[in-house]
């Protein structure tokens, strides 16, 4: 009898806890700072390990040294200068890659005939590792900006091309028929049916392209750059400054995340119609927050 009662009470407690958890929106409502717990804990452990003399911290400096280095680089104006140079290269390369990838992807997505001619070659080129392009681009475009931006644009091109082509090919025939029934002209069909229909997949392709842009900028800045975060990496390696290398890596991570977040924020209003699991969960969480408030 006691067991039954305690079971019932335990279940009540569990239900109450999960109700509270649900009302709070589950894990989705837990502050963003929770995501920082793991890296900050690791940093703290490393800091303590170095302070306790368990490691010299020579090859991987403790967080305090990295923060000092970041501060020093920022104070000298080096960090902002290098970061802006890299950001500029990524943005220009991204813009060119997106333009070329979108046009090529749209053409091959729309026309099976052109796809049969063009797509096998593009797919073969896609399989080439980024570093393999470096010597050729240096030969063709020299070691200055043109070769770097071309390399970044090459990296961005492929996911955007593939994403656009696939998105166009997978537009629901039934939706296209709605356009046909309403006798849309070809431009109207593209503008009123195809573009909105491919937008979610296209945004995903843009995000993949941007991510690759950030990867390719490192390879690009290894091509004899005298400015940029890639240069900071090489400089840190050659002069034996691991704190500078980690500082550059952290700056890469922050800028990469920042640009991706901006892209998501800019495109979100265009996709508010989407019927996604995540979106519904977010709406529920928002409703819960209002209810709790």
């Amino acid at each position: 009898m006691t067991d039954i009662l305690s079971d019932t009470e335990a279940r009540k407690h569990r239900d109450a806890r999960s109700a509270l958890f649900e009302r709070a929106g589950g894990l989705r409502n837990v502050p963003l700072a929770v995501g920082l717990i793991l890296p900050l804990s690791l940093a703290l452990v490393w800091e303590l390990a170095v302070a306790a003399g368990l490691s010299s911290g020579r090859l991987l400096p403790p967080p305090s040294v990295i923060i000092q280095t970041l501060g020093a680089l920022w104070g000298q104006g080096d960090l902002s200068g290098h970061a802006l140079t890299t950001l500029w290269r990524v943005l220009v390369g991204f813009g060119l890659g997106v333009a070329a990838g979108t046009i090529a992807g749209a053409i091959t997505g729309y026309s099976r005939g052109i796809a049969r001619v063009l797509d096998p070659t593009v797919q073969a080129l896609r399989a080439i590792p980024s570093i393999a392009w470096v010597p050729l681009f240096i030969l063709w475009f020299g070691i200055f900006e043109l070769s770097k931006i071309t390399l970044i644009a090459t990296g961005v091109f492929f996911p955007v091309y593939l994403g656009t082509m696939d998105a166009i090919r997978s537009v629901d025939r039934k939706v296209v028929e709605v356009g046909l029934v309403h006798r849309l002209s070809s431009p109207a069909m593209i503008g009123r049916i195809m573009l909105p229909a491919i937008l979610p997949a296209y945004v995903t392709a843009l995000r993949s392209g941007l991510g690759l842009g950030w990867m390719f900028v490192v390879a690009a800045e290894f091509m004899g750059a005298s400015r940029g975060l890639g240069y900071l990496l090489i400089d840190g390696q050659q002069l034996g400054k691991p704190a500078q290398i980690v500082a550059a890596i952290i700056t890469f991570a922050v800028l990469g995340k920042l640009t991706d977040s901006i892209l998501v924020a800019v495109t979100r209003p265009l996709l508010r119609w989407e019927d996604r699991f995540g979106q519904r969960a977010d709406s529920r969480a928002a409703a819960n927050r209002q209810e709790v408030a």
Partner: protein
Amino acid sequence: MLSIENLSKVYQNGTHAVGGLDLSVEPGAIVAIVGASGCGKSSLLRIIAGLELASSGVVKIDGIPLDGPHDRIGVVFQEPRLLPWLTVKQNVGFGLAHLPREERLYRAELALLLVGLSNKANAWPRELSGGQAQRVAIARALVSRPDVLLLDEPFSALDAFTRADLQRHLLEIWRGSESQPTMIVVTHDLDEAVALADRIIVMRPDPGRIIAELPVNLARPRHRAQPGFDAVRHRLVALLDRRSADAALRSA
């Protein structure tokens, strides 16, 4: 007047979906097309809508041959096919892009009022129930005031209660519209055919052809308990039964 003359459709895989079909539908009539799966009902509707090309034969409205989708024809598909990136009101006004904005919005609002969904004008399609979405699809098809409205199993995905409600609603809309369009309804649901149609066309496959036409002279609104409803339904069942249909064909 919608007329179909000697219409045939053979698909690339050799399927003879429609074979030498003739049909005339007088303006404002409601015609239901019934028949077993694969008898060519939907192919016939898609050809009239201009979504498929006929292998031979012609579809005419008032003697003018159609060679593709036409603004005098509206279509309601089996699924609502609302465009998810447009609000309900924008979906309804989708086919009115040629009109000034004010008129487009006015007509869309009027059509929504007609289907009882004015309160959902600014909702996204994902926020609608199946029945509501199909009502919006009906409003979208009617808003451009077509002469012919084609409905391809429009209520088949809905539960029985919603289906009956929408059938009643469709007739109310049809009666309430300025110029009552000719309606051609493809359906598997015999009750639906009897409830809606002035005339029921029975089709049979291999190749798809009309084997019988059944006038329905019952007063509206119709319901199953109405005298004569079951008699029409039983005749339909008999016609759809292969052996009975064979006998009917032989005697024809």
